[in-house]
């Protein structure tokens, strides 16, 4: 459905997109994950033909994407990072206006506007102006303006930034619902939990390059970490560390500020082995956690830095 090949975008000496390659299938929720400045928004802007790029090719619905390819644009809905609505218009007028940029029939537009209002749960706020809405409601209005014309492809650029947890959950549920109704969604975020929660496939971007791509399981399988064991409030000697490191499947051990972190490859009984060792050596300890790898671990292992760095 979407094919991005060798996309290069430069801002002077800065390379915002460095030979980016992506392929997105119809019906999926595709996540673009990366820290701020990794090139997510630039990639989206190029995809929407809002930005000229230096090199590469973008195909949407099998057609090359150009600024005047209005047939393709007609089938795309956009929810941008910052709220893009008119302060002078009411909630209903805003949705109706942006829907009108895609749908010409008055009756049809009216029906679609009402449906979008219901979908984002703004029925009680239709006559209000945007400045009268809370941050969460404003984000919902922003989404309604982008999806009211029921597009085939919806591009959402960090739609949950600065949104309270309750509204965020509602927005994420809404996105899944849109996908269930048949829309393909490209979702960019630097919140790995969100991407993990809703995306069927994910591309991790860093410095304008795609450093990994696949389902979350595929991405997690790319790294060595299968389980991370954390033991808090532990008092032990440095000479115990090589013993722990020699336990089966353990590949990394760190001990700092009375906290022991053990990284193991994906295998069973890692936790039991670590705890048995501590009991054998009569080492006292506090709370114990066992975590499966996250996308942050994937990013950390591939780039050597945290996603939110």
């Amino acid at each position, binding site marked *: 459905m979407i094919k991005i090949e060798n996309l290069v975008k430069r801002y002077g000496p800065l390379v915002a997109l460095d030979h980016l390659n992506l392929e997105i299938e119809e019906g999926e929720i595709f996540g673009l994950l990366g820290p701020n400045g990794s090139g997510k928004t630039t990639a989206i802007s190029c995809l929407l033909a809002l930005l000229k790029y230096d090199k590469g090719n973008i195909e949407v619905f099998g057609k090359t994407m150009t600024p*005047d390819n209005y047939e393709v644009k007609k089938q795309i809905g*956009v929810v941008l990072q910052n709220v893009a609505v*008119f302060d*002078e218009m009411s909630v209903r007028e805003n949705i109706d206006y942006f829907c009108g940029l895609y749908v010409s029939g008055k009756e049809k537009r009216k029906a679609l506007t009402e449906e979008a209002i219901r979908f984002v749960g703004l029925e009680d706020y239709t006559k209000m102006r945007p400045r009268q809405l809370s941050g969460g409601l404003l984000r919902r209005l922003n989404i309604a303006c982008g999806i009211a014309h029921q597009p085939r492809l919806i591009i959402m650029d960090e739609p949950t930034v600065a949104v309270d947890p309750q509204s965020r959950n509602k927005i994420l549920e809404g996105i899944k619902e849109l996908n269930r109704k048949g829309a393909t969604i490209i979702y960019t975020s630097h919140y790995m939990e969100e991407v993990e929660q809703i995306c069927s496939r994910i591309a991790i971007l860093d410095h304008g390059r795609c450093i990994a791509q696949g389902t979350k399981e595929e991405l997690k399988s790319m790294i060595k970490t299968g389980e991370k064991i954390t033991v808090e409030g532990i008092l032990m000697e440095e000479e115990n560390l090589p013993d722990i490191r020699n336990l089966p499947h353990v590949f990394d051990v760190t001990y700092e500020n009375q906290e022991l972190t053990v990284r193991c490859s994906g295998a069973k009984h890692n936790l039991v082995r670590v705890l048995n060792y501590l009991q054998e050596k009569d080492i006292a300890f506090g709370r114990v956690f066992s975590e499966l790898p996250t996308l942050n671990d994937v990013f950390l292992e591939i780039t050597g830095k945290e996603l939110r760095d």
Partner: protein
Amino acid sequence: MTVFKGYMRITKRLLGMILMYVVIFTGVTVSMQFVARGTESSAYRAERLDIAVVDEDGGALAKGLVSWLSEKHNVTGMEKNEEVMQEALYYETVDLILQIPENFEEKCLSGENALSLTKVPGTYNAVYASAQINTFLNQVRTYRAAGYTISEALEKCQSQNDSQVNMLADSKAKNGMQSYGYAFRFMPYLFLTALCYVLGLILASFRKKEVKNRMMASAVSLRRQNGEGILAFLVVGTAMWLFSILLILCIDGKSFLADPNKWYYIGNTLLLMLVCLAIAFILGLLVSKPSVVNSIVTPLSLGMCFLGGAFVQMSLLGENVLRVSQFLPVYWYEVVNDTLSNCVSMTDGVRMSIYKGMGIQLLFALALIGIAMAVSKMKQQDR
């Protein structure tokens, strides 16, 4: 026509703001009219003097003169008493004392200057009254020489007092401007503030980065968006222009419709509207924050109107200021407006001067539209 409707919807929201400017404009115009009317009526009122008459003659001519004077001035009788007379002049209870000597009629008809006028020292009122009295007596002499009796001559002179003179010269040739002339003079302020403010705010809303991106990603072509935007600008501008003409018809419609130059006035405001639209368009392109629009429009409109001669008459502006003003479209609008206001008859020279002012305004409008298009293109290429 979604984009066009969007512009109209936002314009509707800003209607309150437009009305505010219209009220200010109307208030200024009406108050200027009242001030002007007051000045005109006081400037042409004949002054009535307090005159004391000491009539020692008591003849028909003396009585006729006193009666004639009474219609023009406040005349009171006085006894021939030096002390009383001096006191009246000293305390300025009278402006002058007219003494009619004995045998006045005889002396007067023989051409002798028999009357004596005593005035308050340092005043010139006696000259005015003396001229009137001389005119009257000359008329009596003329009638007498033509064979009229004294009573017939007095009657004839008296009847001339009641005659009305219809001035054929146009009232604007005197000094004052017609009421609608003031309205037209202040028109640049209304157009600049209302159009720049309203259209600047609308365009600023459409040029917000996020809204602009959403619009550019939409299925409506950029050309169509621009086209509908320009159409909305023209509709708002034309509505404002029509409204201003309507306002003038309400203020002084009868005089305006009777003015043979009314179409020049209308054409001049139409050109001004185009210039203001272009200025508003550039402003909207350059400014994307509503708060900045407000802070620019006020000094821009006031500055242009002051320098262009909308608030201060051009004759009162310094030479250097006028030299700078020539680079402002408002100046040329006011030049045409002043020419029309002072024009008694439309000669070829006057017509040429009007066409020149209008032509320069048109050039300003075209140049500003060109600049606006260049700015717009430059902004698009930035991407």
